[in-house]
């Protein structure tokens, strides 16, 4: 159910930006979602149809780019992506890392007319 709150958040980010640019219609909303974020894009599309009805975003396509988990490791200095499901430094196996990407959730850009 919190996907509804998130969908409203998408509208709040997208519609004013489109209006400020003088757009009449939003054709596409491009989202960037980190792999660590628990949000399910398919549910958002579902809610989006309801929430956007009657607005300039009605009928817009939502497209999602996933952002991989990235860490910076103070032990060995590794900075970059983790591909394994285990969240560890891939170089030294350290666990003292800081997560530097993968929790993002934002509207990156819009296609408007």
């Amino acid at each position, binding site marked *: 159910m919190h996907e509804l709150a998130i969908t409203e958040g998408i509208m709040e980010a997208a519609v004013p930006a489109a209006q400020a640019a003088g757009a009449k219609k939003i054709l596409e909303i491009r989202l960037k979602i980190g792999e660590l974020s628990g949000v399910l894009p398919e549910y958002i599309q579902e809610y989006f149809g309801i929430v956007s009805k009657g607005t300039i975003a009605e009928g817009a396509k939502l497209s999602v780019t996933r952002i991989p988990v990235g860490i910076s490791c103070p032990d060995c200095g590794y900075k970059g992506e983790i591909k394994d499901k285990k969240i560890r430094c891939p170089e030294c196996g350290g666990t003292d890392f800081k997560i530097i990407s993968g929790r993002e959730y934002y509207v990156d*850009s819009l296609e408007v007319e």
Partner: protein
Amino acid sequence: MEIKVVKQILAWNEDVSESIRRLTESKHVAIINIMGSPGAGKTSLIKAVISGLREEYRIGVIEGDIAGQIDAEAIDSLGIPVVQLQTDGACHIEAMSIEKILPSFDLDALDVLLVENIGNLVCPAEFNIGEDFRVSILSIPEGDDKVAKYPLMFATTDALVLNKYDMLPYFDFDPVRVENDARDINPRVEIFPVSSKDNSGIPELLCWLRKNIDKKIKTKREGPV
């Protein structure tokens, strides 16, 4: 035409969460976000924590519920300040609700605020509520596959409490699997097997809570310099 937006969704929640943290920083109050499924034993654990820590800390409780006030009444009967937060059907607590409810407490007369989140392993994990740390509860009867199935809840928590541990002989629950799954996604998580019924494991949990609460409120307890 393309418009670059780069705007965080739920940014408002993060902003409010940060402002709660700044407020509790100045008031030296630690907020603990307690999460878990319905029936995992959140209220019972809160009662055990209250009885273990009430001599040392001034404790308040926010009871999040979709409806009703049974849990709040249980805490109130202990003589602890408690405020009921009814979400009217919403599946999680948001930072804004906490911000609205904080004025009901005298923060100068509190050290610790325990927040019992809505019983749900999915949505609450997504929303910071200004907490200093998170405690997630998984009870033995729920099954040992839950950490793998609900990764966000267990990846973002600081402590994982395995409650109703006295039930272990009666369920096919593999605690080693849970520990491995949890450490895969959250290598620094602290794991506490407890039973709020017979109090086993509670002293270890209390010890960890003290350490983390003191990190936030230490300056107050040592008095002004």
